[in-house]
């Protein structure tokens, strides 16, 4: 559905995007993560046929962004970084305006607008001027604008910004539903929890190029190494630590706890529990230490050089 090959974008001497390749099939969500100025917005603008790539090609729902820009724009729903609504319009008029520009007739447009406004709990405010909406409400209207013509592809830049938890949940559910109805979605976000929850694939962009990509689990594995396990005991560990170090790589330990890494948890953990049992050391708990996407992200963007990171997948295409 979204296919981009070696996209580059120059603004004068400034090389904003340096060879980004993407593949997002229908029914998949790709999260583009990266610091401000990483090239996410420029990439999305090229894929939405607003900017022309300086080099490389991209096809959206079968249409070339350079030679068929209007068809691409018709297939795409774009939620921009800022909601940017026309303040003196009501929500209904605003959505009718964009629906009409997308070529919808008045009846279809009105029906679809009503359906979406109800879904996002904005129906009661439909005749109020957008100027009086809260930030979260404005963001919802902007999201509805992107969805008004039921596009095959959606580019959503920070879709839950400024929303209260309940509204954010509504939007996340809507994105999940869109995925289920075989839409291809690119999500630009700084909300790593959201990316983790919603995205099938994650790409981290930095300095105009993809520096890491994969599923959340793959990235964690690649960036933070084997899973970390922690065993807690009811009494002080004495000689057990040296015995356990012969079985696994011990990361750290204290009087009544010990952390180790292993990628073979199914074999190692039962063996370790047996060893402790034989030694007469009661085990209180054995659990995996949670590792967040945030740690992965900070590890990636914390690197001083924008080049691709060693040890991270360099697969050119993202997707399943």
């Amino acid at each position, binding site marked *: 559905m979204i296919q981009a090959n070696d996209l580059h974008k120059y603004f004068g001497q400034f090389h*904003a995007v340096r060879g980004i390749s993407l593949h997002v099939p229908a029914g998949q969500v790709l999260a583009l993560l990266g610091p401000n100025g990483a090239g996410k917005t420029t990439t999305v603008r090229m894929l939405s046929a*607003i*900017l022309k790539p300086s080099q490389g090609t991209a096809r959206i729902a079968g249409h070339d962004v350079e030679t068929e820009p*209007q068809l691409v724009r018709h297939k795409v729903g774009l939620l*921009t970084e800022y*909601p940017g609504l026309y303040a003196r319009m009501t929500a209904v008029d605003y959505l009718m305006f964009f629906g009409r520009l997308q*070529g919808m007739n008045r009846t279809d447009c009105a029906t679809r607008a009503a359906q979406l406004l109800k879904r996002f709990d904005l129906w009661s405010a439909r005749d109020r001027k957008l100027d009086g909406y809260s930030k979260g409400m404005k963001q919802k209207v902007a999201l509805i*604008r992107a969805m008004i013509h039921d596009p095959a592809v959606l580019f959503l830049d920070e879709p839950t910004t400024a929303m209260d938890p309940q509204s954010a949940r509504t939007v996340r559910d809507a994105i999940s539903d869109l995925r289920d109805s075989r839409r291809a979605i690119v999500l630009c976000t700084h909300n790593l929890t959201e990316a983790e929850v919603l995205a099938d694939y994650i790409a981290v962009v930095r300095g105009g190029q993809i520096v890491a990509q994969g599923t959340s689990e793959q990235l964690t594995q690649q960036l933070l190494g084997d899973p970390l396990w922690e065993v807690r005991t009811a009494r002080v560990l004495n000689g057990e630590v040296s015995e356990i170090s012969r079985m696994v790589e011990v990361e750290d330990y204290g009087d009544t706890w010990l952390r180790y890494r292993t990628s073979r948890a199914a074999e190692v953990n039962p063996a370790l529990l047996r060893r402790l049992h034989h030694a007469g050391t009661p085990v209180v708990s054995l659990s995996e230490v949670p590792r967040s996407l945030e740690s992965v992200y900070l590890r990636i963007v914390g690197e001083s050089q924008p080049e691709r990171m060693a040890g991270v997948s360099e697969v050119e295409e993202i997707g399943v």
Partner: protein
Amino acid sequence: MTLLPIRVVARREMRDNLTDWRMLFPVIILTFIVPTVILSAALYAIRFIGDNGSVARLIPFGLLLSGFLPASFSLITALESFVGEKERNTLESLLAMPMSDGELYLGKLTAALLTPLVSALMAMATFAFWYNVAAPAAVQGRVRIDLMWLMVALIAVKAIVMVAGAVIISSHTTTVRAANLLASFVLVPMSVVVQLEALVIIAQQPQLLWNIFWALLAIAVMLVRTGMNSFNREEILSREHAGFSTKRIWWTFKQFLKEFQPAGVAPERYTASFSLRRFYRRDFPALLHEYRAALLVVFLAVMTGLVFGVFAFGAYRAAWLDNFLQRSIGTAPRPSLFNAAGIAATNLRIGLFSNVLSLFSFGIFAFLVPAAEFAQIGYVSAWYAAHGRSPWIYVLAYVLPHGLILLPTFVLSSALGIRIGAALLYAPRGFTIGQNILWALANAAKVFGLVSLPLILLAALIEGLVTPEVVRLVYGG
């Protein structure tokens, strides 16, 4: 190109404007109150002076002013059309819609045009209504109705010129503040035109007003076409990455000075260092080829000037001018270096100022210099012919000796100035408007220093030392 997106965009904009009281209130005052006040003032002036004949000539000008004020005020919406949306972050979602650049531009232009046009026409209708109701029959009998209709046509075309210019400015600036500052490039020339029209109205020369109308119509068509050709999404969004840096501006200007490349070649691709030999052998001929459109415009200015000069002789005669020309036949100042220096200083000043002022007048000043020069030649030639003397001998004696060098130099200088003025309106592919201006300024500076300056000095020497001798030789002084 389809009509639907144009209509949808235009309707939304119009509705937005008409629901904003900050915009609507002044327009209502300018449309309904000010024309009434202007007419009352004109009628009071007629009564006060007690001369229906001459003061009544003010009535058409009052009508013109009634239309001009709301039209110029409504420019605010035109200036906001693109850059205002950009500042309010609403533009990107509009750019993401499946319509062509042309459709989006025309939608915006239509909306921006309708408010000033309708308000100007309504203001003129208000003026005309009160004129019919309140003006005494003696005054009404003195005012030419065809002149009144001509005023309506002039205001309509002026509104198109102003709005088309303002929309171009709006689509090429990054802030509303910058657009408002640049609005003077539209308002100042238009105010000059209104003043010129006032003179022509008082002189009761409707045919001249028609000429102004046709000229404005040509400019309007040119501006609309230029706006449509130069507008594209890419440029608008790319400008977000262009910061203001005097260091960068100076570097770009120096790059353009180094060698000549056609407009649109990025300054980074200027690799050669400056060479005087290459400038005269390759760069200057290539520059003349690149400037062929500007040279054609100057040629038109020359022809217009000549025809205007001959026509002006038929329309405008003054005893003092007749006496002056009569006295000056066959006379010339004594050849002197001092005179030559004075002539050189004057010509240099004209060349420099017309180019500098071109930047602020869309090239109009550069257009006027050759037009005025040749209008003088046309006028005096017509005078000679009318007095039974050969205009050819006048041209041969008074003009050609130095004119062979000076006139082509002025033509070249004007072409450079016109290109500077045009740079504000249109950037060729690969250039921003800023780069386009710098490119035109760098070429003008280079050609002025290396071609025009030596030729103007040489022409001044000939005019100061040789032309007087030729005059004496031909006329036997």
